[in-house]
């Protein structure tokens, strides 16, 4: 049996570039031998003898490693590229797209102003929505039945009313409640009082509506992320005397982020386009602005294209952010961080260039 093990080890050592696999084989064969019966070790012996006969005793230590080629991958790439070119060609050559008009309006002052409003609404209600959502998620997961039910009711109400209705309600709050005041209930003492219509501008109504709605959804996303973190993490942190707030923010949340981020970016990208719902308040964000223009000029399609191109641009930038943020939070969750696309491209070109150089050399 020991001779079988050494034969296997030797032949493995010759074919492998490094001694490590050989050492491993030797180890496992020896370990098996301790428990295995005679028949088993005889089989191992014949297998070893067979492979030893098939392998000429050659030395490959000076050979270069060449990765496997994937010809079908190249065929697929070419087909997809052809499709893309065909679509691009039709877009470029069909005069009905009116690219001239698109170019003319793309950076027009009114369109850019609308774009800024869209970004403003997205950033403010996205940020506030997620902060409020985080608080709601913690409330929902707390031990207090009161906090749990408040959080649950919030999500229930805002997820069950159409956003459009919420917007209009906020904007028309002045109709329901003429004045908003802060004071002692059921008395005449008022510390502070304003006319509702002055407080709730178009902008305020839009931000309020989008934020509260976003908070209801993000609360669930964040709660899902927190639930995905192992209970043992909280226990270990509690056993170390780490305070509750720190446990949430330093131990649980960074781990929950891995589950939260993909859905959260979905939500934010949805929000970029979702802000267009504020057209009901005649709020001139990107989409409303474009509508106003094409109602005037009748150039419907090109102007819709202007808005679309801007939305594509925003989504693209967000996707890049998403990639790098996700990568940041995968620290420690994967054994080794995968390469970024840039690093991959660099590696692709350097290895392929090297292999092609070698091939060229071989051909000579």
């Amino acid at each position, binding site marked *: 049996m020991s001779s079988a093990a050494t034969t296997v080890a030797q032949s493995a050592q010759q074919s492998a570039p490094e001694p490590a696999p050989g050492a491993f084989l030797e180890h496992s064969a020896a370990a098996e031998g301790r428990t295995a019966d005679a028949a088993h070790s005889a089989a191992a012996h014949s297998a070893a003898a067979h492979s030893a006969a098939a392998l000429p005793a050659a030395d490959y230590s000076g050979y270069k490693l060449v990765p496997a080629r994937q010809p079908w991958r190249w065929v697929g790439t070419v087909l997809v590229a052809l499709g893309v070119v065909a679509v691009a060609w039709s877009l470029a050559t069909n005069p009905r797209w009116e690219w001239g008009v698109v170019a003319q309006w793309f950076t027009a002052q009114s369109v850019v102003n609308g774009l800024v409003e869209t970004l403003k609404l997205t950033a403010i209600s996205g940020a506030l929505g997620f902060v409020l959502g985080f608080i709601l998620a913690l409330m929902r997961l707390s031990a207090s039945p009161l906090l749990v039910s408040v959080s649950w009711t919030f999500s229930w109400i805002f997820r069950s009313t159409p956003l459009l209705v919420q917007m209009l309600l906020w904007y028309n709050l002045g109709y329901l409640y003429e004045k908003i005041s802060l004071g002692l209930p059921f008395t005449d003492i008022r510390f502070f009082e304003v006319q509702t219509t002055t407080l709730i501008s178009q902008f305020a109504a839009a931000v309020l509506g989008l934020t509260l709605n976003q908070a209801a959804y993000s609360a669930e996303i964040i709660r899902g992320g927190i639930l995905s973190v192992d209970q043992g993490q909280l*226990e*270990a942190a509690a*056993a170390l*005397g780490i*305070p509750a707030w720190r446990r949430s923010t330093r131990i649980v949340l960074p781990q929950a982020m891995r589950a939260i981020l993909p859905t959260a970016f979905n939500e934010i990208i949805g929000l970029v386009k979702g802000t267009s719902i504020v057209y009901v308040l005649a709020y001139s964000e990107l989409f409303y602005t474009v509508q106003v223009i094409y109602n005037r000029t009748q150039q419907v399609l090109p102007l819709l294209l202007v808005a679309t191109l801007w939305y594509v641009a925003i989504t693209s930038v967000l996707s890049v952010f998403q990639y790098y943020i996700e990568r940041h939070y995968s620290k*420690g969750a994967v054994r080794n961080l995968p390469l970024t696309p840039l690093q991959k491209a660099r590696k692709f070109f350097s290895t392929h260039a090297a292999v092609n150089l070698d091939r060229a050399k071989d051909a000579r």
Partner: protein
Amino acid sequence: MSTAESPTTAPPAAAATRGHVEITNVRKSFGATEVLKGVSLTVPPGGVAVIVGPSGSGKSTLLRTINHLEKVDGGYITIDGQLVGYQVRGNRLHELREKDILKQRTDIGMVFQNFNLFPHLTALENVTEAPVVALHRNKAEARKRALELLDRVGLKDRADAYPRQLSGGQQQRVAIARALALDPKILLFDEPTSALDPELVNEVLDVIRELATSGTTLIIVTHEMGFARDVADTVVFMDEGQIVEHGIPREIFANPREPRTRSFFSKVIEPAFNI
């Protein structure tokens, strides 16, 4: 022996002055099932108590009541005379506020079966986290101390590795360093080697062996009988929520008095195991 009487472990070799654990008549139920049926145990400063017993006998639950991760339903636990998780007001024991419980826990280190290292923090960050936020130690100082501790468990050169880049045995050693970073009076180990491959068990047991002579009180739940015999001042046998028998390892392994103890040891100790 009766469960109300409090078994005391043999005095430790090193003269330690802190970490006197007194568990008195502790009861705990989960729903209708009583998991701890009045458990009493005394471990003197620097003592090493090893708790053994069949699965489900309440070993983990007992360990978790010692740092108040699990609330007791009856009885009490003191460490150096101070109640754990409660304070006396009149003739009642009032549960402490979270803040005070967290403070008490910094005196009681715990090492878990599945390590529970924070996977998004490096080994070093795992060890420095609690001293900085729970004991408000200076960061540089905590870092220096953490590196010493990592060195002590033989992992100084892996300080910047993330837990998933470490082997199971290395992870558990980081977890031990993390527990030591608070300079606890007591260390609780809940089956620290059960999640490890056999060849990794010893590197962890060696670290615990070294701790056993350092004067820290250790309470260890384990299925490693050979290790228990080596390291324990007292071996405590638990079954069905009660301490059935306890004694110095030589005696309890060679001549268990209770039939339940005898039948348990006859199952878990290999025939070749010599006392």
